[in-house]
């Protein structure tokens, strides 16, 4: 492997680098002789083989590791570990960290031209954003296909399409893939692409960490997918121990997959949080930050701080499998409660990782299409941060019936219900913005309104769930399942769609087709509700989650739900068709600012130049000053001066 870094060419005065021929790094070099997706795949495959061989070599004789079960966890784990390492080496993620050992610094160079930069370790946040679009959609469609399989099995209470082991495998993979996808579905594509544009920055704070976050995210996809090769894992996405300890090698894919995805989440959140804090354009005080950026900041802090707990929990699980520690096994001094606590301590903030970006998107979109300023800006920001903060104090509400600290239940019931106060802020903001507005029902607005509709149901049922007496009946049933599909799919995925319809014209330069978009919206909205609303009733009538057999009396409702689910799947095909049609088959060039937005991201040229802004804008006023005659423009692109532009960055006060 060759080191991509090179000696910087600056002069002592730190002025602009002199022009001259430069070596191009391996990640940017044109042609096959370079580091790209292909080398990553090859090295990942070789790493996998090497790891397997190595594991069998060192542990093949250990009776307790592979004696009676015939499975060598060491080999299974090392194979996956070296697969990921090979993937990172192949794509070039390790070039720079290795170069640093020699005191070198990389020069930031323009990414490769053309399509090939999308298949490389590219440092441009816009390219990373587009990579994430494809990556998350891949996750989404894989998980969606598995959902179709689940609904097919549930068509009949006792006649089975899949055998129960396969069914559990499908359920578990669906849950895990969707959860992994949902942690990044907005932060990855839209967060990475738009945050620098919306805060008036030319770059991310740590572009390599950003690129790393995507490539490790895609490695996570391979790892979690590899569970299928091993017969899957039987635990659902929550991976409860000690069932986890009992499971076969597919479980290692789950644990390691979550650890890998966790690294990606930490990296993505870390970079974005630091960027938002430090790289806001001059004049962009905290009261002038766009609401989407607020939500991404709240999400990024949760990603950075909550995910390490998941990483540790996954590490413990891997150790339990690979070296036979007993952290989760009661009989050997461990505790199954330990996993439940660690997992949900991460898991609940994660739920808000999946809700907050959705709130941000709609708060960003609603003012544009109502032609009104956002109602109660500060309340909205406080709501986002309040949700983020409170989310660390509610995790035990997943464990109300578990027997863990039962006397603490009133406290967690209180904290859980308190979280609906900041969530209510989001509704105040949304509903207030509709008042006497001039609503334009474009596709993004429709999806935003659908979020308010769906999330209301999801949120209210959340209050039911948080109430311990009611929780006795609904815990672990289809009621819960419906509740979180209403919040995550009805909230986040609808918001993601709103965001795609809204921002794709900026990201790709082409408009999404409105007619197809309308079809997509209405089918998705109607069939989403038809799929998941009956599940509240199914759950109340006593159907637990993740079962392949259920009461004969519930077949009607289940069939209704299943058939609606197939239609919902079809509506995603419509979306996919619209995407292909509008972006590739019959692209229609988008106007520079198709929605008449005042947002900073629409003020820069289209396609966005490599460094985003010709001049760093100076923010002169609050965002969202729609319908205000004589309001100053949000940003001043003229001067580019930085004087007086304290953006709240720690700036020069920092000790160097």
């Amino acid at each position: 492997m060759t080191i991509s870094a090179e000696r910087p060419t600056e002069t002592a005065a730190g002025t602009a680098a002199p022009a001259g021929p430069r070596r191009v790094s391996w990640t940017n070099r044109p042609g096959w002789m370079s580091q790209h997706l292909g080398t990553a795949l090859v090295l990942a495959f070789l790493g996998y083989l090497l790891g397997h061989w190595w594991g069998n070599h060192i542990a093949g004789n250990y009776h307790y590791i592979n004696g009676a079960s015939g499975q060598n966890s060491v080999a299974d784990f090392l194979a996956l570990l070296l697969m990921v390492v090979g993937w990172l080496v192949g794509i070039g993620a390790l070039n720079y960290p290795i170069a640093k050992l020699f005191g070198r610094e990389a020069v930031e160079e323009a990414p490769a031209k053309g399509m090939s930069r999308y298949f490389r370790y590219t440092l441009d946040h816009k390219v990373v954003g587009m990579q994430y679009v494809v990556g998350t959609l891949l996750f989404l469609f894989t998980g969606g296909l598995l959902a179709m399989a689940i609904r097919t099995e549930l068509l009949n209470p006792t006649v089975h399409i899949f055998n129960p082991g396969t069914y559990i495998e499908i359920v578990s993979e669906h849950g895990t893939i969707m959860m992994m996808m949902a942690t990044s579905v907005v932060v990855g594509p839209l967060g990475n692409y738009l945050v620098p544009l919306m805060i008036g920055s030319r770059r991310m704070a740590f572009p390599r960490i950003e690129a790393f976050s995507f490539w490790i995210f895609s490695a996570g996809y391979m790892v979690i997918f590899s569970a299928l090769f091993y017969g899957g894992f039987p635990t659902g996405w929550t991976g409860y121990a000690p069932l986890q300890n009992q499971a076969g090698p597919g479980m290692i894919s789950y644990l390691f997959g979550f650890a890998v995805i966790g690294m990606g989440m930490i990296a993505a959140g870390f970079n974005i949080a630091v960027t938002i804090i430090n790289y806001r354009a001059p004049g962009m005080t905290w009261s002038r930050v766009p609401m989407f950026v607020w939500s991404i900041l709240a999400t990024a802090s949760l990603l950075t701080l909550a995910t390490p707990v998941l990483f540790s929990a996954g590490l413990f699980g891997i150790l339990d499998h690979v070296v036979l520690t007993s952290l989760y096994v009661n009989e050997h001094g461990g505790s199954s409660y330990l996993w439940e606590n660690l997992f949900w301590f991460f898991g609940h903030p994660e739920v808000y990782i999946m809700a907050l970006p959705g709130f941000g998107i709609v708060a960003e979109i609603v003012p544009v299409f109502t032609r009104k300023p956002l109602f109660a800006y500060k309340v909205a920001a406080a709501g986002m941060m309040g949700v983020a903060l409170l989310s660390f104090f509610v995790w035990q509400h997943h464990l109300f019936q578990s027997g863990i600290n039962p006397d603490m239940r009133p406290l967690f019931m209180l904290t859980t219900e308190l979280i609906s106060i900041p969530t209510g802020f989001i509704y105040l903001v949304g509903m207030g913005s509709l008042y006497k507005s001039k609503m334009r029902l474009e596709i993004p607005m429709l999806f935003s309104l659908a979020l308010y509709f769906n999330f209301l149901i999801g949120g209210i049922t959340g209050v039911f769930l948080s109430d311990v007496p009611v929780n006795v009946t609904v815990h672990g049933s289809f009621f819960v399942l419906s509740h979180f599909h209403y919040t995550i799919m009805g909230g986040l995925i609808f918001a993601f769609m709103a965001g795609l319809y809204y921002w794709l014209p900026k990201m790709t330069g082409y408009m999404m087709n409105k007619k197809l978009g309308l079809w997509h919206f209405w089918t998705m909205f109607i069939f989403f509700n038809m799929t998941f609303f009956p599940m509240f009733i199914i759950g109340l009538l006593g159907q637990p989650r993740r079962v392949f057999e259920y009461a004969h009396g519930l077949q009607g409702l289940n069939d209704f739900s299943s058939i609606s689910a197939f239609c919902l799947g079809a509506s995603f095909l419509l979306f996919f068709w619209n995407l292909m049609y509008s972006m590739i088959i019959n692209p229609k060039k988008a106007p520079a600012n198709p929605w008449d937005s005042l947002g900073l991201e629409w003020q820069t040229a289209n396609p966005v130049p490599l460094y985003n802004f010709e001049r760093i804008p100076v923010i002169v006023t609050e965002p969202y000053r729609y319908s205000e005659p004589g309001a100053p423009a949000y940003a001043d692109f003229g001067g580019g001066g930085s004087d007086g532009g304290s953006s709240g960055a720690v700036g020069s006060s920092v000790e160097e």
Partner: protein
Amino acid sequence: MTDTYKDSTAPNATPEEREFEFRSHIGSIWTGGRLAIGVATFMYASLAFAYFYLRSSNNSHLWRIPGQLAPLYYGWTILICMLVMAGLGMYGHSRLRKGFTNDFQVAGWTGVAAGLIALFFQIWELVVLPFYPGSSGYASTFVAFVVMNIMTIVFATYWLETAVARSLRLRKELGGTRPELSSAHTARSFRANVSSMSYYLGYVGIISIGFFLMFYVQ
């Protein structure tokens, strides 16, 4: 750990813009260093949680088999090496601020050596453990701690090493100007990086004492 500063290569950036972006960059190093401490804190907190949770639940009376203790000499060696690394990193930083690059470099290299020794003993300790990993809750958490500590040592040593290596190369790049005095952006960025690093090393020192007390003191 941070990208040391490069000027924005936006072709037509004005000096003011460069200065602005540079300040943002310095701020990022500051914020990033603190956030990295936050990440590590949550990781170690989950380990500490596991430790105290298993200890208090004492399932099957197997929190700890009487007399079970990790090799104490290894523990002391690792602790002292880590403290030496942390101390030298922080000392080097303070010397650098006073203008003594050579002191920083000597302290840094020594610190790296201490880190590598700690790493060696931390890995080798697994081979001489007097208990098997699943024998008790303590044994299990100890193995988890070792793995986590290996990651920390690797990361801290890496950061220290890259900083020292950078200081050597920087002197060449700056044409002999000493990095502790230069007002060049790269030099100022380097100093901000060392500052964040020294905070992080201080944090590692505290963590290593805390976990030493948890795991090696009965």
